[in-house]
C-alpha cells in the first residue's frame, strides 16, 4: 500500500486545485523557503485525521483555509488522498484496488469526510487508518526542526513509540 495521489484545494497556500502524483520509493519535495513544501506535508497529516492546531502550525483550525489577496473567494479547504490497496488489507474494502479519502472544512466550522466518495465521520477515518497501520503522530512522521525530539522527550514518552511498534 502506498500514496498514489494527493489533491489539495483551498488548504493553506493552495487557492487553486493542485494534483500531486506520488510513486513508490523515495520522493523529495524541493523548492525555495516559504514556497509551500511543509504545507503539503500538513495536508497529508490533516487528511489522515490530525486534529491538533499546534501540529498543523495554526492557531485555529479555520486558519487552514486559504486567505490572501486573491480575488477568488475560498469557502472551504479540501484534501483528497488516494492509496493503492493491492493486495487488499482491509476486509470491508477488499474489492477496491484503491481507497480514496477526502476531508473538507468550511469557514462556518463544518467538516465533511468521505471514504470512496461515501460520507462518513472522522471516527471512521481514524478506524480505517488504524487498520492500515497509518498514524499521523507515529515515529515515522518527523516535523521540521523536530528531528532531535525523540532524544529530548521523557523516557516514558519515548516508550510510546515502542508501543506503536509492538
Amino acid at each position, binding site marked *: 500500500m502506498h500514496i498514489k495521489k494527493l489533491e489539495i484545494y483551498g488548504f493553506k497556500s493552495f*487557492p*487553486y486545485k493542485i494534483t500531486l502524483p506520488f510513486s513508490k520509493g523515495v*520522493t523529495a519535495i*524541493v523548492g525555495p523557503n516559504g514556497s509551500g513544501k511543509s504545507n503539503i506535508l500538513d495536508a*497529508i497529516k490533516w487528511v489522515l485525521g490530525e486534529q491538533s492546531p499546534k501540529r498543523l502550525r495554526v492557531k485555529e483550525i479555520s486558519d487552514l483555509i486559504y486567505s490572501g489577496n486573491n480575488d477568488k473567494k475560498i469557502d472551504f479547504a479540501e484534501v483528497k488522498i488516494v492509496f493503492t490497496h493491492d493486495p487488499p488489507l482491509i476486509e470491508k474494502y477488499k474489492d477496491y484496488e484503491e481507497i480514496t479519502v477526502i476531508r473538507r472544512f468550511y469557514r462556518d466550522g463544518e467538516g465533511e469526510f468521505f471514504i470512496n466518495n461515501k460520507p462518513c465521520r472522522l471516527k471512521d477515518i481514524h478506524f480505517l487508518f488504524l487498520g492500515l497501520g497509518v498514524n499521523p503522530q*507515529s515515529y515515522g512522521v518527523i516535523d521540521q526542526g523536530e*528531528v532531535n525530539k525523540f532524544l529530548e522527550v521523557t523516557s516514558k514518552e519515548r516508550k510510546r513509540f*515502542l508501543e506503536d511498534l509492538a
Partner: protein
Amino acid sequence: ATEQILTTLKEVNLKLREIFPLIFTKGQAELYLTEEDPLTSGLDLRIELPQREIKHLNMLSGGEKALCVIALLISFYLTKPGPFCILDEVDAPLDDKNSLKFIRLLHKIKEHSQIILVTHNHNVIKEVDNLIGVTMEERGVSKVVRLKLESIYNDIK
C-alpha cells in the same frame, strides 16, 4: 502486551546493532527499559563510541543527535515496516558525508515503505527516485512543478 513489548524491543535492538555501526564507525547503541515492568517503564538509549565516554546524550553534537534518531528510525522500520514515512528537513544538521549516509540508509527501507521527504540538500536530491518541485510565482500562491532530476540539477550548478 508485556510479552509483545519485550519481543519488539529485542528485535529493534537486533536491527540497531546492524545499522548503528554503519553511521558511527565501530559504535554501538541499545534501547533499554528504565524499570522492571514494561507497562509502566520508560525507554532510554545507551550509546558507545570508541574511545569516547558518552555520559549522557546531551554531550552529542547537533548532527550526531540527528544521526542517532535516523539510526533508530531505520531500525524501527526494519522491524515493522509502516506504509510510509514523512520527513521534513531532518537532514538540515548533517554535513556532506553524513547526508549521503542518510539518503543511502533510506533506500534500505524503501522496499516496503514509501518515503516522502523535504530537503534543501543537494547531496540528498541527487539520490532520490522522484522529485516534486514547489514554487510561489504569484505572491502567496503555491504551485507544483513536476521536475526531472537532470533539470533541477542544472538549476543548482
